[in-house]
């Protein structure tokens, strides 16, 4: 079965530290890839997405993600985190042979210490 794995369920960092959240998926075909974020008390919202082209994708608030096809990975990065980045981050994969199905990871809770 298709699945999405997020390696860390909880991450705690200090402000200004660099961030990398892992995301791996199991699907051999072509995919669209997404990162969504849920800030405390808010709804899920799109952070960035990859459909094709440059495998390094830039999103809002200084986040970026790199698609490495050979590793089936789409890791999220930010060079210097802020306290306001405290949130839960979800990776999601859409197999292109399904035009609407999204398979979600379990999420990573990120806490930034001020």
């Amino acid at each position: 079965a298709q699945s999405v794995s997020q390696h860390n369920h909880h991450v705690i960092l200090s402000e200004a530290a660099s961030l990398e959240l892992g995301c791996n998926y199991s699907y051999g075909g072509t995919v669209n890839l997404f990162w969504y974020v849920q800030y405390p008390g808010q709804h899920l919202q799109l952070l960035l997405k990859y459909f094709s082209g440059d495998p390094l994708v830039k999103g809002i608030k200084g986040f970026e993600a790199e698609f490495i096809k050979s590793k089936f990975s789409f890791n999220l990065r930010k060079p210097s985190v802020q306290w306001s980045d405290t949130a839960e981050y979800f990776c999601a994969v859409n197999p292109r042979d399904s035009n609407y199905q999204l398979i979600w990871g379990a999420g990573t809770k990120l806490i930034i210490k001020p």
Partner: protein
Amino acid sequence: GAGVSQSPRYKVAKRGQDVALRCDPISGHVSLFWYQQALGQGPEFLTYFQNEAQLDKSGLPSDRFFAERPEGSVSTLKIQRTQQEDSAVYLCASSFSGGSTGELFFGEGSRLTVL
């Protein structure tokens, strides 16, 4: 409002009761999704509507779950004879087009607790 609205935000039901959860998507959005999110997990697909047509209900866990979107806008997820394992956050999301190429806009969810 401009976003996806879900009600109620919180629902406590006794086992065996029926519940109805409402989703009011962004006006003009064609696609509407229901997801179930258990504690510590990512969203799990329940069902998908394109306008009023329910194109996929393969994620509904049992025949106690029923969803409708009769006029292609507001949708209701109904759970009959609730069980404790139905306790979860139920998320509604809408999209201007099909979910794969469009951004999904989520509501804040309805948290169901079955006692």
